[in-house]
């Protein structure tokens, strides 16, 4: 698609460039400038990760060796070692990774399902109270950041005797207004004919939902899944409050605890950070085009 439209633009360009003696040169210069900018921004995005990655494989005493004064050697491990990784795994970082995987996975499956169902109801059904429900249950919670209301939620979870349990970590994070909103916008675009056809064939609404609608909705499913995954993978404030028990320790809490308790073991802090970062990065990159599709279909344009 990019190539086609690119040709369309350059076809229009001579009209604009008539005044200039050599618009060809201008064009090349412009392209060069774009590449310089692209590379500079890419370096800004990459540099912190590259340094942290290299430093996590470096003996602790030498972490800052090439950082100050800066030389490019800072982007490669000085004396490659796995001591930092060995140390954090010995302190139970592997369990934290496993816990976060489990929590995020369960949330993606359960949360993905119930939010998709709700999104479908808002997109495809007419019912009493639709508008008011949409405003109070979707829009309002979206505008109220969850951490702002953590205290009563904490008291509620305590009164359910859920402190230090998986339920306390999983259940409050399942219903998600943004996910419902994304699903609703996507489901509105599904042609009515498809739904009618399935209905005529006698499919129940639930069957229609799982067998017809969901298979058509890959971009929004992937986007919502990633979103729910990140929400739990990145969770910090809430687990800190409700699940301080070491057996339930999650990855962000483990990293932060390491910073508080081992302030000068820099390479270990960075090793934990790199492991915590690599998982979502690997999930994010292969599906890039779907997010743009899902966001575009969310109708934010108007």
């Amino acid at each position, binding site marked *: 698609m990019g190539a086609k439209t690119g040709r369309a633009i350059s076809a229009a360009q001579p009209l604009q460039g008539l005044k200039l003696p050599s618009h060809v040169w201008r064009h090349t210069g412009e392209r060069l400038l*774009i590449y310089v900018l692209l590379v500079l921004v890419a370096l800004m995005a990459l540099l912190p990760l590259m340094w942290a990655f290299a430093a996590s494989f470096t003996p602790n005493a030498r972490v800052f060796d090439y950082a100050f004064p800066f030389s490019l050697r800072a982007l490669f491990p000085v004396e490659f070692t796995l001591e930092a990784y060995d140390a954090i795994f010995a302190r139970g970082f592997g369990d934290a990774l496993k816990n976060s995987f489990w929590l995020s996975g369960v949330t993606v499956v359960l949360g993905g399902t119930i939010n998709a169902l709700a999104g479908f109801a808002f997109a495809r059904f007419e019912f009493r109270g639709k508008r008011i429900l949409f405003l109070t*249950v979707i829009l309002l919670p979206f505008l109220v950041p969850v951490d702002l209301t953590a*205290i009563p939620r904490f008291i509620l979870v305590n009164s359910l005797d859920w402190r230090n349990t998986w339920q306390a970590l999983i259940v409050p994070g399942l219903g998600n*207004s943004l996910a419902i909103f994304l699903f609703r916008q996507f489901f509105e675009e599904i042609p009515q004919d498809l739904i009618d056809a399935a209905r005529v064939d006698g499919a129940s609404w639930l069957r229609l939902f799982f067998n017809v609608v969901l298979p058509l909705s890959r971009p929004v499913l992937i986007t919502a899944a990633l979103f729910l995954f990140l929400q739990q993978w990145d969770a910090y404030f809430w687990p800190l409050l409700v699940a301080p028990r070491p057996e339930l320790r999650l990855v962000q809490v483990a*990293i932060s605890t390491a910073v508080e308790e081992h302030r000068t073991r820099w390479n270990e802090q960075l090793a934990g950070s790199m492991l915590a970062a690599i998982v979502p990065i690997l999930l994010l990159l292969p599906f890039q085009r779907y997010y743009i599709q899902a966001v575009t279909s969310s109708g*934010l344009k108007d």
Partner: protein
Amino acid sequence: MTGRERFMPYVFLLPALALIVIFNLFPTIATLIESLHGNSLVRGGRVFVGLGNFNRVLNDPIFWKSMQVTGLFSVLVNTIQVVLALGLALLANSRVRGITVFRSIYLLPVAVSINVTTVVWGLMLNSEGGLINGMLSLVGIERQPFLIAPTHALWSIIVLATWKGVPLWTLFFLAGLQGIPQTVLEAARIDGAGRWQCFRFVTLPLLRGVLLFVLVADTVANFLLFAPVLLLTKGGPQLSTNLVMYETYRRGFVYGDLGVSSAMLSLMLLLVFAVIGVQFTLLRRRT
């Protein structure tokens, strides 16, 4: 729809909506109610204290200082992030070879949590031998006390929050840009519009919806910034990074004063709504 069919919508809605009502809506209302209660020293337990907590909060110079810090922080960080995200989206929307590789790289910080960002940038901003000081030294700038001077600390937090925050908003702007039909831009160009005019009078108005969404969502997200303050500065030096979110945590969970903490959170809640309201009216009216 008759009989059983009539209940179908509610069957679809029930699981998600019930959870949102219990774990999101109820706590929002409860925050407001909790802010009217305090610990009773005489009887133990919670008693109604009316606006007593608000009275204490509003007469507390530390709270006002942290409101000031939060206000300054919000204005700076949201402006910087939205402008950079829009600029970056325009850049990432250029039709040049290899652009998808650059887009993937730009997206990376989305996958990096704020805690990881805090750890990595915290070490890079180290005032002794951090990477940033190392780079500055190459161009002859002396070591900067990034996280330990009241003049620098808030800016350091803005920088790391921006590194993490901008890519997500860039993604939204990029999606918005790709939704603009090429024909519209070409028509403007043929009518003699220059690059800036195209952007100002064609692209920007068509991005209004995305802009509003990004502005609101970014504002809400930044009001909540907590981990960098907890891990790097503890609100200091001299309260220069004592964002309200951290102050409510300190009051509520470190000192156990849930009433005052809830009162602060209620005020934050009202503030969030006020700011969003202003953003809505401004952007709706502008075009």
